[in-house]
């Protein structure tokens, strides 16, 4: 099981019950469990939404869309049933926070789903959990069963006359399904291929009904906001960036782990102090601020506050909260290659710029990293990436392009160091499981012809 960490600067809201056995419903009830739902049951739907708006809670899945606003888009009258969909398909590289919430505090997610349901008068919720997280699916199923047994779910919840059903649902391995419209397709038993928008899910979503889709962490925050009040929650962060956030510190640091810090926390402090600094006495080279799809920051760009707006200004994103620290012994070409290999593997293949773009970029980067690059490849990599941006159905194309563009722009000299058949300056071991084209003279041989 994942090890828990702590730091004095942490402000525990969503992680308040971590390590306290709250997956057990008795324990959860002792820790103020299910009070928020009862409070919400006594409120008008619009008041719930207003409370959410006041909290300035922004989506924790990656896009950072204001949650209250998202809920307010659902039409009041709908001929089709409305749905609440909890996105637990966490698979953005660098992100491992939903796992902790689902493991330590599954009931808070259920509460969040019910409250979201009350706010838009929906009676059905689904909690989608990625297939790899089987032990978490088991925990969630137990939690749902316990909630049903006590009348917190099902008909006439808490004796209020309101019906609400909630079910968990397993994925089977697909990053793309984390995209909201692909998630709905997957839940409908299909390939996880994104839908074109408009119509947006809030109007036409799951089974054609209006649907709210929120990340696990977003929904786990909802009961705390209901109990503490939107204003209190907003006050924890910076203006327009309410509350706290689970930051997953990983990569080349001494104390990796998931830390809950207020939005607006200084990134340098997060690396040097909270995560214990760069490991092995090495220097900082780059930081991925919010999961592999966000553009990287250079070592001299880390004196910033971690909130949605500041990172947007820096040309990056706060994303999913996955902070990956890269030390100075890491080859950025290899890093770009590994990121691209991931997106090429995960591209659903539906639209051409992403399917072909990621494949070409992966092949080019493999050849380049192995020493078979030519100067114009560097511009080609950038050109190809730039042409993927904004030209795909869903953000996966952008997610592949954005980090690549930033790495080429910010670490161009490392690409140049690989030119003219020179071996990677950072390669210390001979480990290489990628299909590498072995040494060839790029001036006289076409690598692809030679390979066949």
């Amino acid at each position, binding site marked *: *099981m*994942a*090890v828990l*960490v702590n730091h004095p600067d942490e402000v525990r809201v969503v992680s308040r019950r971590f390590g306290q056995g709250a997956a057990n419903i008795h324990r959860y009830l002792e820790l103020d469990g299910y009070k928020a739902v009862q409070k919400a049951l006594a409120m008008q739907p619009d008041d719930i939404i207003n409370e959410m708006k006041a909290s300035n809670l922004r989506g924790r899945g990656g896009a950072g869309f204001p949650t209250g606003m998202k809920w307010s888009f659902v039409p009041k009258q709908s001929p089709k*049933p409305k749905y609440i969909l909890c996105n637990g398909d*966490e*698979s*953005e*590289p*660098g*992100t*491992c926070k*939903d*796992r902790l919430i689902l493991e330590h505090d599954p009931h808070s997610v259920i509460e969040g789903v019910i409250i979201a349901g009350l706010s838009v008068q929906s009676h059905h919720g689904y909690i989608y959990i*990625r*297939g*790899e*997280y*089987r*032990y978490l699916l088991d925990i969630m199923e137990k939690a749902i069963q316990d909630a049903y047994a006590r009348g917190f779910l099902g008909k006439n919840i808490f004796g209020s006359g309101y019906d609400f*059903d909630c*079910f968990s*649902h*397993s*994925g*089977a*391995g*697909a*990053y793309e399904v984390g995209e909201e419209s692909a998630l709905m397709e*997957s839940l*409908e*038993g*299909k*390939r*996880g291929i994104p839908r074109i928008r408009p119509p947006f899910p809030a109007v036409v979503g799951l*089974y054609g009904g209006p649907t709210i889709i929120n990340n696990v962490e977003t929904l786990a925050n909802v009961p705390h906001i209901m109990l503490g009040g939107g204003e209190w929650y907003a006050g924890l962060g910076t203006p327009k960036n309410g509350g706290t956030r689970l930051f*997953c510190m*990983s*990569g*080349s640091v001494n104390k*990796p782990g*998931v830390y809950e810090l207020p939005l607006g926390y200084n990134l340098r402090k997060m690396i040097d102090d909270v995560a214990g600094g760069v490991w092995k006495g090495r220097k900082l080279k780059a930081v*991925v601020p919010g999961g*592999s799809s966000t553009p990287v920051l250079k070592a001299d760009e880390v004196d910033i506050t971690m909130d949605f707006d500041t990172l947007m200004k820096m040309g990056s994103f706060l994303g999913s909260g*996955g902070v*990956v620290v*890269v*030390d100075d012994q*890491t080859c950025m070409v290899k*890093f770009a290659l*590994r*990121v691209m290999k*991931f997106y090429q*593997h*995960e591209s*659903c293949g539906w639209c051409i710029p992403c399917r072909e773009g990621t494949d070409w970029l992966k092949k080019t980067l493999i050849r380049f990293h192995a020493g078979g690059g030519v100067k114009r490849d560097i511009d080609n990599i950038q050109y190809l990436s730039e042409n993927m941006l904004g030209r795909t159905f869903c953000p996966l194309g952008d997610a592949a392009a954005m980090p690549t563009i930033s790495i080429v722009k910010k670490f161009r000299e490392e690409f140049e160091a690989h030119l003219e058949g020179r071996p990677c300056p950072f390669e210390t*071991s001979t*480990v*290489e*499981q990628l299909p590498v084209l072995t040494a060839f003279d790029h001036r006289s041989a076409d690598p692809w012809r030679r390979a066949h």
Partner: protein
Amino acid sequence: MFTHYPIKRSVLVPMLLYVQDELGYLSDEAIAEIARRVDTTELEVRNVISYYSMLRTRPIGKYNLQVCTNISCMLRGAEEVFDHCRKKLGIGHKGTTADGQFSLEEVECIGACSWAPAMQVNYEFHEQLTDEKVDQVIEKYRNL
């Protein structure tokens, strides 16, 4: 499970995974039966299977070692871990040992970034791996 959803088809993805857990893989017979139960064609079912990376139509070893080599793990030595597994088991990516006990796979992010490098053996997580720890894990499953 059918009662959880307004349409039958919704059970397909979890059902495929649960059947695979029982059989080890999705056999032709299993696919035909699943298609019948969710009122769709075998072709549709195969179409869905081919999309999800955890679903397979061929048997593999009893214990499947899935080593993550994505960025957070890579930065903490996942490639060395994967290479160690390869040498230890004498098989490569997507290979299976002759005795059918172990399979090896290089996988994408499994959500263990803060506890990297990590792998899953079937559904079980093993984190903060070192060569010695990998040896222990393999021994543990070998003796099960």
